[in-house]
């Protein structure tokens, strides 16, 4: 599904190399987790893959189902099936959550040459999905993320993911700012979307999220590349011993 090879990325504005030859492959149907200390480049990876401005790819490649991602605009990547659940979902005053979601769903459908969803159909689908995530009608009506609590923002990200039905989901520190109950709710939302045709890349600091969203593979990232990969037990090892040992052994 997602294949990253020897990816080198620097900041556009300053001469600072962040990703230094990162390689990674996430096959369809699998959940991979990336763990790593602060400053290892985890968030940069998620932004570069989703097409945020301000980064320069100096070497390497990233493809989604064989298509070059790095050549596409952010919206084209989304239409191709890439989804980033933001670590810090953005507040957009003045744009209703529902309007936003419907615009997004139909923009992607249009880009893929599919028929747009009617208002009635959209309403029916979103109501059902919102209910599962305990998102009430008021939250759907309010401006995007404005006045939402940390947990509400993250649930709203998962709702967007559920509505857009992407092929490749990147979750950037989705557990940050969540209490235990909210983490359960969000994880259930993610697990419900697990599918043989869909892949997940879960970026996290802590092992606890991986108790809820059990990964197939865990990668440890440090210094801008993957330094070690293994099964779920690798996450437990990190939790117990910290990153220092692993980085040394790498």
């Amino acid at each position, binding site marked *: 599904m997602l294949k990253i090879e020897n990816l080198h990325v620097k900041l556009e504005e300053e001469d600072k190399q962040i990703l230094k030859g990162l390689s990674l492959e996430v096959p369809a149907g699998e959940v991979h987790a990336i763990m790593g200390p602060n400053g290892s480049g985890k968030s940069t990876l998620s932004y570069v893959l989703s097409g945020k401005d301000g980064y320069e790819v100096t070497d390497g490649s990233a493809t989604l189902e064989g298509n070059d991602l790095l050549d596409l605009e952010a919206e084209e990547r*989304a239409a191709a099936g890439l989804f*980033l659940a933001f670590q810090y979902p953005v507040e*957009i005053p003045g744009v209703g959550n529902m309007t936003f979601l419907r*615009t*997004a*769903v139909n923009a992607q459908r249009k880009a893929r040459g599919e028929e747009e969803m009617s208002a009635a159909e959209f309403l029916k689908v979103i109501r059902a999905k919102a209910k599962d995530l305990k998102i009430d009608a008021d939250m759907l009506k309010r401006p*995007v993320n404005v006045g939402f609590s940390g947990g509400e923002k993250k649930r709203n990200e998962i709702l967007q993911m559920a509505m*857009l039905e992407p092929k490749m989901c990147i979750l950037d520190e989705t557990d940050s700012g969540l209490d235990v109950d909210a983490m359960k709710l969000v994880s259930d939302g993610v697990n419900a979307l697990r599918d043989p045709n869909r892949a997940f890349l879960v970026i996290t600091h802590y092992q606890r999220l991986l108790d809820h969203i059990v990964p197939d593979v865990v990668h440890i990232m440090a210094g801008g590349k993957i330094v070690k990969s293994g099964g779920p037990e690798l996450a437990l090892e990190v939790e117990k011993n910290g990153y220092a040992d692993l980085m040394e052994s790498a």
Partner: protein
Amino acid sequence: MAVAKEKLLARKRDALAERLGALTLPEGGAWVTEARKSALGRLEAMGLPAPRDEYWRFTKPDLLNAPKPAPAAVFDHGDEMPVFGEVDRLKIVFVDGVFDPAQSDDLTLAGVEIDRLAEAAKADIHWAKGVFGTVELASQTPVERPLAALNTAFATDGVLIRVTGKAAKPISLIYKHEDDCSDAILHNVVKLEPGAELTLLENGPAAARFNKCLEVDIADGARFHHIRAQGRDHERQAVTGMFVRQGAESLFKSFTLTANGRLTRNECFIEMKGANASAHIAGAALGHGDFHHDDTVFITHDAENCESRQVFKKVLQKGAVGAFQGKILVKRGAQKTDGYQKSQSLLLDDEAQFLAKPELEIYADDVACSHGSTSGAIDEDMLFYLRARGVDKGTAMDLLVIAFVAEAIEEIEDESFREEITERLESWLLRRRG
């Protein structure tokens, strides 16, 4: 200093003499002639606006002063339905400033008395005496408004509306523009008797150049809603004045949408004379290229416990200029005043310009008054968030533009009008992107 001032005034009077060469004081009955002569008198004393006048520093008055308007091409609307086209309303149509009976409805409406100025001016006495030219006169202090005085003196037509009850439906003034060189002057008066209620709609560019006055007298407990769209002609020039007097527990709510127009100067003067009154004035302006848009607002709190809101949003690009001058004056004794003023611009590129001068002048000690003025670009994080969800850049920008002006549109009380204005904007933005 005194000599310089004299010189400046002499120049303003010279400009007026040149302008008046093209105008003659209309004939009429006693009441209107008195008002017109009085207006001409104050106009002659003031002369025309000059760039050095305090309230004309941001906006060059040349195009509005000139004896003849600069030609303005008529905008091709294609098959687009006119704004308010689907609203059940009483239509009064002016084409290049000339009343068109064929396109207008019968001027009869339950709870309302409607006369055209052209007809009412023939009589020796009319109920509009006491409003016509009077609220405009009040607005001349402390800021001179020569173009409004010129309007009162020389307008030959317009509508005089007296509302005695709750108007059965909105009155819709439609200003069509068909002649590239037309120069229209219209003067409207609305008088709301105690407890009365009216929604007034205005739309259209009116002419190549338009000078319009609207005087509104709102008696105790009366409610006035005003929603305006100023047409889409790119080259038209307009100076409009809205002069308002409010009684106790009255409501005034006005919203103006401006998209395009070479020069727009929208002045507003509101005087709150009775306690517990509420005045809200809002505007959304979107311009690109040769676009200059100026809101000059003056709100006087002259009674206790009144509330006023000013919400102005301008979206500017490609050299467009927006100006805002807003003042809240709280007179001695106007305790418990709640006044708020917000003027914001969204600058879509480096060439756009926004000029703002918020002012508060307060002579009472128990008041809450504040203002906020900002200029900013499109928020890159918001833009990326939208694009990361698959919304293309153009649509995402439009969404953010609409979101930016939404707060001004929110000032419209009626939901269906809010929706209509928002949908219009969406379709115009879409069309602009082609």
